[in-house]
C-alpha cells in the first residue's frame, strides 16, 4: 500500500459507528463480504485537505472474544491487516460499557482514537463529560462527536494523522493489572512466549497470555498447531483456574472482565463524568411502556407488519408494473424485429421473460428493505424479537427469526428472497440456517396465485377459509421443521438473548438509503446472473427436442384440410370464420400439448411419473412442478398450457379452474397432496441462489433436496392414507 493511511472504524452496536463511517466516507462507501462469510465489509475513502485515508468499517461488537463471527472478523482485521489507527466510536450516554471494547483494542496495542458520540444527548440529559481528562487518563486522543450531523468527523481524522505521526507505526500494548492471582501467571506466560517467539509474528506476547487465560478457542487452537509450548501454557491456566476456583469461587475470564471494568471505573471516577445517570427512566422507556405492553405490544406489532406488507405490495405494484411493462415492451419489440426461430424464442421466452420476472421483484425488495432498515435503525426490530422470543424458542428458533418468516409470506404475498437476506440479522449460524431453510415454506406471492387458482377450482364455496387454513399449515410446517432441524442437522444450544434494547433514534435518510441500495444491488447482481442461466436452461428443457417434422407436417395438413373444408360449411362468412378460428385453435393447442409432452420437461415428467404416482399427482401438475422450480408463478401458466386452454394469463384463470375441477383425476387426496407439496417442495431458483449466497452450496442443495424429500414424503402419506380412507 502507498503512504495512504489505513484506518479501521469500530464500535459497539448502536453507537453510531456506521453513521460516522458514512459521514467520513460520503458516497465512496462500498459493501462487500469478508471472504467466506456473510458479515458485511464496508470500505471507503476519506479525502480532505490533502489528507487521504482508506477506511474499513469493522462489524459492530461488544468485545473482542472469539464467540461470534463479528468478533473474530474484527480481531483478524486488526491482527492481519494491521490498520495504522483504529477509530473507536463510543456511545457517550453509556460510557462505562462503551469503553470495554476500547480497552481491549488498547490491550492488542493498535493505536486508538476515541470518538465520543451522542454528545448532544449527553448534554441534553445534563451530564458533563470531561473529554480532555478522559484523553489524558486513557492516553489516547478523545474527540467529541455528533455523528448524525457529521460533527467531529474532520477532527477525528486530524487525530488519526497526529497519532500516526507520533507512533510511526509502532504498536504499544497497554497492560492492565489483573490482580495478584492472575498477574504472576500472565508474567510467567508472557516470558515463556517471548523467549520461544511463540506466535509472536502475529500477536503481542502479553495479549496471548491473557487470551490463554480467557480460554479463547481460536488462539488455543492455533497455539496447539504452532508448537509444544501450548501444552505448558494450558497447564499454567489450569493451575490458576483451579486456584481461583477454590479460593474465590470464580474463574480467570470473569476476573479479567472485572478488572477491565475496574480499570474503566477508576478512570471515570476521577472526575471524567459529572453525574451518573444509569437507572434513569428516559423517553425510550416511556415509548416501550406502550410498544411492548402485554396486550398493546403484540397488536401494534401485527399492525406494523400488516402496514409494511400493505405498503410494499400496494405501492410496489406500480414500479413493479413499470419494470414488467419495460420488459414486455422489450420482448414485443424484439419479437417484431427478429426473424422467427430458436434464437428469438430463446431471447424472448428464456432470457427476457426469465430475467424480467426476477427484476420485477426489485422494486418490492427495495421498498420492503427500506422499511425494514428504517425499523431496524429506529430500534423497533429489537423490540419485536423481545416480544416473540418466548414462542420462537419453543421451536428452536430465535426471536429475531420472526421477520424473515413474515417477509417470506407469513401473511400471504411475501417473497422468500428478501426474507432469506434479512436472516443476516440473526447472530447464531445454526438458528440463522434453520430460519433460512424454513422461511421459504411460507406462502409467497407466487404460491398465492397458484393456490387461488386451485382453491377456487376445488373449494369455490369456502375459498377464503381454505386459504387461511393453508397459511396456518405453512406456519406450523415451518416451525415444526425448524424444531426438527434444530434437533438433528443443526443441533446446538440456543443463542443467549442477552441483547441491548437500543434507545429509539430516528435514522438518517442517508444511512437508510445506503443500506437499502447495497442489498438491492447485491440482489440484482448475484441473483440476476444465476437466474439468467437457469431461465435459459428451463426454456431449453421445455423447447427441446422439438416435434418431429412429420408431426409438424401432420398438424399443418390438418390446418390446411380444415381451412379447405370451411368453404363448404353452412352459415354466413362471419360464422364460418369464427368456426374456423375455433377449430384452428384446437389444433394449435393439441400441437402445443404434444410439443410439451415431447420436450425434455415432458419426458422428465413422464420419467418421474412412476415415482410421483405414489403421491397421486396428475401429469399436468408434474410438469407444472418442474416449471415451478424456476418461479412458482410458472405453475399456473404451465398448468394452463398443459390443460390446453391457451389461457396463459394467471390473473384470469377462472376457466382453467373450471376445467381442472371437472378433471376426475383430482380426488380430495390428490388435491391435498398437491397443496402440501406446493408448500414445501423446493424454494424457487431465485431463493436457492440467495440461499447459496447467504450460506454455501451445501445448504443450497440441502434446501432443494431436503424440501423435495420432505414434501414428497408428506404428499405420499396424504395421498395414500386419503385414498385408503376413500377420498
Amino acid at each position, binding site marked *: 500500500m502507498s503512504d495512504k493511511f489505513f484506518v479501521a472504524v469500530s464500535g459497539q452496536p448502536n453507537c453510531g459507528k456506521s453513521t460516522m463511517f458514512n459521514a467520513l466516507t460520503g458516497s465512496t462507501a462500498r459493501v462487500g463480504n469478508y471472504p467466506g462469510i456473510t458479515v458485511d465489509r464496508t470500505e471507503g475513502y476519506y479525502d480532505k485537505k490533502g489528507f487521504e485515508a482508506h477506511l474499513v468499517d469493522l462489524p459492530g461488537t461488544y468485545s473482542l472474544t472469539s464467540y461470534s463471527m463479528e468478533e473474530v472478523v474484527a480481531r483478524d482485521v486488526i491482527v492481519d491487516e494491521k490498520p495504522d489507527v483504529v477509530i473507536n466510536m463510543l456511545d457517550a450516554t453509556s460510557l462505562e*460499557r462503551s469503553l470495554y471494547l476500547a480497552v481491549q483494542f488498547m490491550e492488542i496495542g493498535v493505536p486508538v482514537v476515541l470518538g465520543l458520540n451522542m454528545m448532544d444527548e449527553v448534554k441534553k440529559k445534563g451530564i458533563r463529560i470531561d473529554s480532555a481528562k478522559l484523553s489524558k487518563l486513557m492516553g489516547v486522543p478523545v474527540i467529541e462527536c455528533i455523528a448524525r450531523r457529521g460533527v467531529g468527523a474532520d477532527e477525528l481524522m486530524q487525530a488519526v494523522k497526529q497519532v500516526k505521526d507520533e507512533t510511526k507505526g509502532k504498536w504499544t500494548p497497554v497492560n492492565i493489572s489483573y490482580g495478584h492471582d492472575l498477574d504472576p501467571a500472565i508474567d510467567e506466560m508472557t516470558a515463556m512466549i517471548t523467549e520461544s517467539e511463540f506466535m509472536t509474528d502475529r500477536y503481542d506476547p502479553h495479549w496471548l497470555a491473557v487470551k490463554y487465560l480467557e480460554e479463547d478457542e481460536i488462539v488455543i487452537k492455533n497455539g496447539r498447531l504452532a508448537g509444544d509450548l501450548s501444552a505448558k501454557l494450558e497447564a499454567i491456566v489450569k493451575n490458576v483456574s483451579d486456584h481461583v476456583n477454590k479460593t474465590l469461587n470464580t474463574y480467570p475470564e470473569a476476573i479479567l472482565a472485572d478488572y477491565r471494568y475496574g480499570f474503566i471505573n477508576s478512570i471515570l471516577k476521577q472526575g471524567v463524568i459529572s453525574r451518573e445517570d*444509569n437507572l434513569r427512566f428516559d423517553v425510550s422507556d416511556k415509548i416501550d411502556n406502550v410498544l411492548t405492553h402485554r396486550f398493546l405490544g403484540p397488536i401494534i406489532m401485527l399492525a406494523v407488519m400488516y402496514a409494511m406488507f400493505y405498503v410494499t405490495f400496494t405501492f410496489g405494484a406500480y414500479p413493479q408494473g413499470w419494470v414488467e411493462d419495460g420488459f414486455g415492451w422489450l420482448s414485443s419489440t424484439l419479437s417484431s424485429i427478429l426473424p422467427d426461430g430458436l434464437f428469438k424464442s430463446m431471447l424472448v421466452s428464456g432470457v427476457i421473460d426469465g430475467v424480467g420476472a426476477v427484476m420485477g421483484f426489485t422494486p418490492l425488495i427495495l421498498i420492503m428493505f427500506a422499511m425494514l432498515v428504517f425499523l431496524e435503525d429506529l430500534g423497533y426490530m429489537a423490540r419485536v424479537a423481545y416480544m416473540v422470543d418466548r414462542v420462537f424458542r419453543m421451536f428452536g428458533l430465535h426471536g429475531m427469526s420472526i421477520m424473515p418468516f413474515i417477509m417470506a409470506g407469513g401473511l400471504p404475498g411475501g417473497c422468500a428472497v428478501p426474507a432469506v437476506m434479512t436472516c443476516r440479522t440473526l447472530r447464531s449460524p445454526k438458528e440463522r440456517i434453520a430460519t433460512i431453510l424454513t422461511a421459504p415454506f411460507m406462502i409467497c406471492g407466487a404460491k398465492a396465485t397458484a393456490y387461488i387458482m386451485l382453491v377456487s377450482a376445488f373449494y369455490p364455496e369456502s375459498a377464503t377459509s381454505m386459504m387461511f387454513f393453508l397459511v396456518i399449515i405453512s406456519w406450523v410446517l415451518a416451525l415444526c421443521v425448524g424444531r426438527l432441524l434444530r434437533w438433528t442437522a443443526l443441533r446446538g444450544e440456543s443463542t443467549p*438473548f*442477552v441483547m441491548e434494547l437500543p434507545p429509539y433514534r430516528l435514522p438518517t435518510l442517508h444511512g437508510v438509503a445506503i443500506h437499502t441500495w447495497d442489498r438491492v444491488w447485491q440482489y440484482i447482481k448475484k441473483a440476476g446472473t444465476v437466474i439468467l442461466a437457469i431461465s435459459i436452461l428451463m426454456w431449453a428443457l421445455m423447447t427441446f427436442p422439438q416435434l418431429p417434422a412429420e408431426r409438424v407436417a401432420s398438424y399443418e395438413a390438418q390446418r390446411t384440410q380444415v381451412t379447405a373444408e370451411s368453404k363448404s360449411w353452412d352459415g354466413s362468412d362471419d360464422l364460418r370464420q369464427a368456426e374456423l378460428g375455433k377449430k384452428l385453435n384446437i389444433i394449435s393447442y393439441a400441437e402445443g400439448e404434444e410439443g410439451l409432452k415431447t420436450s425434455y420437461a415432458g419426458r422428465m415428467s413422464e420419467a418421474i411419473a412412476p415415482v410421483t404416482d405414489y403421491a397421486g399427482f396428475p401429469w399436468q401438475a408434474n410438469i407444472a412442478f418442474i416449471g415451478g422450480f424456476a418461479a412458482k408463478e410458472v405453475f399456473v401458466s404451465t398448468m394452463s398450457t398443459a390443460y390446453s386452454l391457451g389461457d396463459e394469463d394467471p390473473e384470469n384463470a377462472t376457466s382453467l379452474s373450471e376445467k381442472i375441477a371437472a378433471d376426475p383425476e383430482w380426488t380430495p387426496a390428490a388435491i391435498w397432496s398437491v397443496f402440501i407439496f406446493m408448500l414445501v417442495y423446493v424454494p424457487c431458483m431465485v431463493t436457492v441462489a440467495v440461499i447459496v449466497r447467504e450460506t454455501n452450496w451445501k445448504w443450497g442443495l440441502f434446501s432443494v433436496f431436503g424440501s423435495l424429500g420432505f414434501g414428497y414424503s408428506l404428499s405420499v402419506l396424504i395421498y395414500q392414507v386419503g385414498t385408503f380412507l376413500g377420498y
Partner: protein
Amino acid sequence: MSVSLRSMRKDQRGVVVSVNVRGELGRRIRDMGLIPGTEFRIVGRAPLKDPVALRMKGFTLTLRNNEADFITVEIEE
C-alpha cells in the same frame, strides 16, 4: 438477602452479587457490563413474561428467565 434475578418484579431495583455461568452466556453477560456490583432496575417483561428487560449503566438490556437464573442479586427496596 440474595435471590435469583428471575424472581424480581417490575420496577424493583437490585445490585448484581454474582454471575454463575461460564462459556458464551457468561461472556455475553460480562461484555454487556452485567458484573458483580452493577446496579439495575427491572423495566419490563415481554408479553409472555419472558424475556425480561433491565435498565443499567445507561442502557436497556434484555435476557431470558433461564439466563437470569444464573445471576444472583441483592434487592434494594
